[in-house]
């Protein structure tokens, strides 16, 4: 027998009963499994999924087993030494290639942003993932806790956002990118992929092939729910190999059984917004020449999503030489799509005067500005995010002192965000346009 490791040494403590080797092995196995699979009561979903996938005819994901050796009569006559040498050379080449791939395989994904506890799981152990890290093919990412999240960006700018308790595996193959999701929620925005190299997402219950689309996948123990908000996705349910096309605005739920596929239209509120600025990149706001100076900067003190927001600090009052209350105007590039009907700012009020208001307008290519809506900050609870939503397609001409006489959304170049009537310290985040008013829309006037 091969030499035993520490688990088989004889017991020698006076206060403990001697342990027989089998008992020591049993405890050793328990401790190893605890270290591998986590605390009591936890299910290793990835492992269960692998077994169920193999039962459903999928190939083994991790385990590569050599095919049984069958020695025919002719092979048996070969000199054993030649065969051994050939096998050794082949193994050395294989190990060399595998080692080269491990060391020099190009990164396939960059981690743009991380919230909460997100970790990289490998056979070597678990390490925390930080923003800016680049990941190679074959890694697994795990989010722990409801506040965990990360945004992963592929070389072609496809983006995947993982949220909450989630475990995903990333692989790059000659046939395209592969993403395995064992549990949790991901949102993906995929650039157009080559038709012969599609992006394939696999869950314990189904696989989804995307060529270029925007989708959300929610995987629980029993079901995979696919929501397509843009483009078309082909989904295959593993239990019966049923194929289905899921188009924009539709959702499908597939479980491990072969019952009827649950399918329907996404509620309008679930159709997501198009982000104008999530404030995770460089500052894109500028101060308008028409307003008073103000302090505005990217900040990490508050964030509606991600790690940053825009902090605005405006000192109200009546500026020198003017009898009316002052105001400040911030300008941000904006393009309005044909389906966009609403503009939303998520706002967090740290402090404000009783009469401080926020206001938003659109600006045209000839500098004409069109009023969209305003809101009195003191009517909103302090220290909480609220949605300031205004309609983008206004019915009549308003507040346009220069330039255009007709409001044409195609000519809109910027949105304007103003604070006036008093002082305030507030944060703005997740500015977005959408076809319907978001579910979290607040009251505006």
């Amino acid at each position: 027998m091969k030499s035993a490791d520490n688990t088989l040494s004889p017991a020698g403590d006076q206060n403990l009963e001697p342990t027989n080797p089998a008992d020591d092995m049993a405890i050793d196995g328990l401790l190893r499994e605890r270290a591998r699979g986590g605390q009591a009561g936890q299910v290793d979903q990835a492992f269960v999924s692998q077994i169920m996938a193999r039962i459903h005819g999928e190939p083994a994901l991790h385990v590569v087993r050599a095919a049984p050796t069958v020695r025919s009569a002719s092979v048996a006559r070969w000199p054993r030494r030649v065969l051994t040498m050939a096998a050794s050379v082949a193994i050395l080449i294989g190990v060399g290639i595998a080692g080269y791939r491990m060391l020099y395989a190009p990164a396939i994904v960059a981690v743009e942003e991380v919230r909460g506890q997100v970790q990289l799981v490998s056979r070597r152990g678990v390490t925390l993932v930080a923003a800016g890290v680049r990941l190679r093919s074959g890694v697994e990412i795990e989010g722990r806790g409801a506040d965990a999240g990360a945004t992963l960006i592929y070389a072609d700018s496809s983006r995947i956002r993982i949220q909450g308790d989630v475990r995903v595996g990333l692989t790059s193959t000659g046939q395209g990118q592969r993403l395995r999701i064992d549990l949790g929620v991901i949102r993906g925005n995929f650039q157009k992929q080559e038709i012969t190299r599609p992006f394939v997402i696999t869950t314990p219950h189904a696989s989804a092939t995307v060529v270029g689309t925007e989708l959300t996948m929610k995987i629980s123990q029993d079901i995979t729910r696919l929501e397509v908000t843009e483009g078309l996705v082909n989904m295959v349910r593993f239990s019966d190999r049923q194929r289905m096309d899921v188009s924009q605005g539709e959702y499908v739920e597939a479980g491990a059984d072969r019952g009827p596929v649950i399918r329907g239209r996404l509620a309008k509120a679930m159709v997501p917004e198009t982000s104008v600025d999530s404030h995770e990149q460089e500052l894109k706001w500028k101060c308008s020449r028409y307003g008073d100076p103000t302090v505005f900067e990217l900040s990490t003190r508050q964030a509606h999503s991600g790690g940053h927001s825009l902090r605005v600090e405006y000192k109200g009052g009546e500026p020198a030489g003017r009898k009316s209350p002052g105001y400040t105007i911030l300008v941000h590039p904006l393009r309005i799509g044909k389906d966009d009907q609403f503009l939303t700012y998520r706002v967090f009020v740290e402090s404000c005067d009783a009469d401080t208001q926020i206001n938003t307008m659109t600006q045209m290519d000839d500098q004409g500005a069109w009023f969209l809506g305003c809101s009195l900050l003191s009517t909103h609870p302090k220290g909480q995010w609220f949605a300031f939503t205004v309609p983008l397609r206004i019915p009549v001409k308003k507040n346009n002192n220069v330039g255009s006489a007709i409001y044409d959304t195609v000519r809109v170049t910027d949105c304007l965000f103003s604070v006036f009537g008093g002082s305030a310290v507030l944060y703005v985040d997740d500015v977005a346009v959408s076809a319907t008013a978001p579910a979290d829309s607040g009251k505006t006037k």
Partner: protein
Amino acid sequence: MSGNPCDDKTFEILVREHHRRVLAYALSLVRREDVAQDLVQEAFLVAHRKLPEFDSSRDFGNWLRGIVRLEYLEWTRRQREVPFSDNILNALEARYREWDDAGGDGRTEIFEALQLCLQNLQDMARRTIDLFYTERRSCADIGDQMGASEPVVRKRLERARQSLLQCISKRMAASEVMA
């Protein structure tokens, strides 16, 4: 491909219920995660194939461990390693059966008992166990960190496992009596 989706669902429940204890059993035998996972995956595939032959009056865990044992013997044959003796394998199987029997029907489950017993370990023993099993450090590394020789670390691990075994046995027995 399996035939009946209801069977698949039932089998998935069995996998979820048993996989960690069976993995612990396989790790007891081979001490390598990749090999243990391989053995257990194969065992579940065999179990799924032979499920119609399974006598439901028997314990599924015992049956599954029997399959893992056969897979282990096959693996040692391929690796040209001498397997553990039948006596050791029988004793190991008996220990796991005892834990299974004591842990059913809402009584303390073995990993739960292990967790509680780990909390009761002395600090030094607990730290040594964490370094060796959780952080996967070698005995030599642990010795360097704790200012002890490698044999001393091995001895500490061994004593810690003895303490855990006794604690787990007491807890499981108490749980059985209360149930």
